[in-house]
């Protein structure tokens, strides 16, 4: 059981690293929100699952799974709220140099 828990913890740490690299390297706010909203949630859920497995069956493990559910609901919701607020505020969307998308041609 400890081996499976360690595997889950290492996987979660890799996803957290990916989300932080995305936060540093991606070009604009919307792509950064993409990195944080998904990779961060999955990494946190993997780490909490690994910790609950390692802890065994107890009330603390149940609360760990409750934290997992709370993160799974609130983290994407918070990211979505921020992104919608940024879009309504008119924050510019990044585009590659010289590329024209369908939306550009339409408007």
């Amino acid at each position: 059981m400890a081996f499976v828990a360690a595997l889950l913890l290492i996987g979660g740490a890799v996803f957290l690293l990916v989300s932080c690299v995305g936060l540093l390297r991606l070009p604009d706010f919307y792509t950064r929100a993409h990195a944080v909203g998904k990779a961060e949630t999955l990494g946190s859920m993997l780490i909490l699952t690994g910790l609950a497995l390692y802890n065994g069956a107890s009330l603390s493990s149940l609360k760990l799974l409750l934290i997992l559910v709370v993160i799974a609901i609130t983290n994407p919701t918070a990211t979505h709220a921020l992104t919608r607020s940024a879009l309504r505020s008119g924050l510019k969307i990044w585009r590659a140099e010289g590329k024209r998308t369908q939306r550009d041609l339409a408007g």
Partner: protein
Amino acid sequence: MSAFFLGLTVFIALLFAASLYRIIVGPSVFDRAIGAGLIGTNAILVLVLIGFLYDRIDMFVDLALAYGMLNFIGIVALAKYFERKQGET
């Protein structure tokens, strides 16, 4: 396993530096808000791991749960507060 938990805690704490860079440099206020949200989510994990390190998991798990809910409320309040309609400065 205790050394493994310690290493994982230090690793997640090092990831705070990336979010701090985005909070300091980030061009728009939304970049800063999302960096703060990332620090909040990582802080939940660090709290739970500290509970495992000190063998007080039953106490720290409650702290982490309360911290997660407060983090969510804070980010949604920031998103609501900084929203401006287009054309309004």
